[in-house]
């Protein structure tokens, strides 16, 4: 059974990583998960300078999922390079650094700073709905996406994954823009923008009013978008949105994802990634797949 996947020239030992922001820098989960077993670790988003994030409450439970408006709190790229990258290097797994910013220049600074760091890939989060509330995120406009991707590609030394927001009319348009800009891969979906009102307190559940919806409830939309994107572009896709079991992960792979990320499910069961990896292998055995790559996109 061959679980290896090749994502834009980077060989992962299996197709399972974690969704940015749901796994800290990896360290927080190291007591629960053998980090060596993961195909890759995707870190929380990091910006050029430290960000304090949004006021609390920042998280809320909703039926079958959650909402967050963390607001991309992060320690800034300098401390991140000093502390978090060396920590992850101790493990035999690929390192994907998720990058965020308010404006192109902020992204560039982080990408430049990371150029000579021992990381394997970068994931560019152009889709956080919680920053610059009131404005549409970069990632909702195809022209922005193509330009930003192209500009980042000029300075990046590692393969670039553009992470797409699902809050768009036509995901294929955005996926194609990322590809046209030279993205090495795309990942999707980021969170769906939602709202929860506490009818007893007559106020919003989140201080930020809106937040990003994640967890099992977003899976049907996520699978659809991965499928559509897979039929629109020729670069690999990292699929995510509600994956909580091997079955969920396989659904994304059959729809066209070359790899998958597990997010919110880590909060319900910190060891879920191990179960997902083992479950994919069991499915391959049962269904006669030699290579996990042979499963990608076979449901058309």
């Amino acid at each position: 059974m061959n679980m290896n996947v090749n994502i834009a020239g980077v060989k992962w030992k299996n197709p399972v990583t974690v969704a940015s922001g749901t796994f800290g820098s990896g360290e927080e989960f190291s007591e629960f998960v053998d980090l060596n077993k993961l195909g890759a670790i995707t870190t929380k988003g990091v910006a050029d300078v430290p960000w304090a994030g949004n006021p609390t409450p920042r998280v809320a439970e909703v039926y079958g999922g959650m909402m967050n408006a963390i607001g991309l709190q992060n320690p800034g790229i300098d401390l991140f390079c000093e502390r978090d990258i060396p920590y992850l290097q101790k493990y035999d797994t690929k390192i994907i650094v998720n990058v965020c910013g308010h404006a192109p220049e902020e992204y560039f600074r982080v990408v430049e700073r990371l150029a000579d760091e021992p990381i394997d890939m970068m994931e560019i989060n152009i889709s956080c709905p919680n920053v610059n509330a009131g404005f549409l995120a970069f990632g909702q406009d195809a022209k922005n996406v193509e330009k930003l991707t192209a500009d980042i590609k000029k300075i990046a030394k590692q393969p670039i994954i553009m992470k797409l927001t699902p809050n768009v009319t036509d995901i294929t348009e955005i996926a194609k823009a990322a590809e046209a800009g030279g993205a090495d891969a795309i990942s999707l979906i980021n969170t769906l923008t939602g709202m929860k009102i506490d009818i007893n307190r007559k106020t919003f559940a989140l201080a930020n009013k809106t937040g990003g919806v994640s967890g099992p409830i977003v899976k049907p939309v996520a699978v659809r978008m991965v499928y559509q994107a897979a039929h629109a572009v020729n670069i690999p896709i990292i699929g995510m949105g509600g994956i909580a079991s091997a079955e969920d992960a396989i659904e994304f792979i059959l729809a066209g994802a070359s790899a998958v990320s597990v997010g919110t499910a880590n909060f319900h069961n910190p060891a879920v990634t191990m179960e997902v990896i083992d479950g994919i292998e069991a499915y391959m055995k049962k269904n006669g797949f030699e290579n996990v790559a042979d499963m990608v996109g076979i449901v058309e």
Partner: protein
Amino acid sequence: MADKKKEQAMVVSQEQIADGIFSMWIHTEAAQSARPGQFISMYTKDATKLLPRPISICEINKEDSRLRVVYRVTGENTGTEEFSKLKTGDAIPIIGPLGNGFPFEAAEGKKVFLMGGGIGVPPILELAKQMKCDKKQIVVGYRDAQTFLKEEFEQNGELYISTENGSVGTTGNVMDAIRENGLEADMIYACGPTPMLRAIKQYAEEHKIVCYISLEERMACGIGACLGCVCKTKEKDAHSNVCNKRICKDGPVFLATEVEI
């Protein structure tokens, strides 16, 4: 490494000890390393409720590997309502112990206030049990005559009670109880609603005494990864590199002077 896990704890016993307040003993490995002021994440079996319910440890029994939690049922169709229906022998998924706990060792030789309010009262019990100090003054506030855990507190220190409706002890809140009884201390440990903690923090500042408070916030991971549960700090925090600390991981107990509440 990878030695912690979500475990299926087992309900040893459960009883209702006041209106909507339940006390549950569970059998769990978590008891071995638990400290007063730490909490556990309790999970519901309702497949639509995914996030943990953080509940403070109220008592620790290492010998029998048991923890006690005392919690309020917050409404219908809530996770806590589900917990309240568990019976002896039922499984309950938990992670823990989590958080830092009260640094009760620092109280040695001191005159101490152990203060709890409302559903912040339970963690004060194990704290009172483990604390060795010169003068152990337990000051707890309730809404009414349903002064749950009163007997246990009486066995573990000098007990002062306040009730909002005046039915037991001092009428008013815990600060009123301190004033009314002319109490003094050179150290405070407290857990309760934010307005109470604010008043205590101010009192400690005025009296220039060391004060530890236990905070609450909505949580998603409970283990320091999601940055959902932060509180504002006075100084830049070394880990976050901003003026935020994680209540689940860096807390829930903080020096009153280091956090803004």
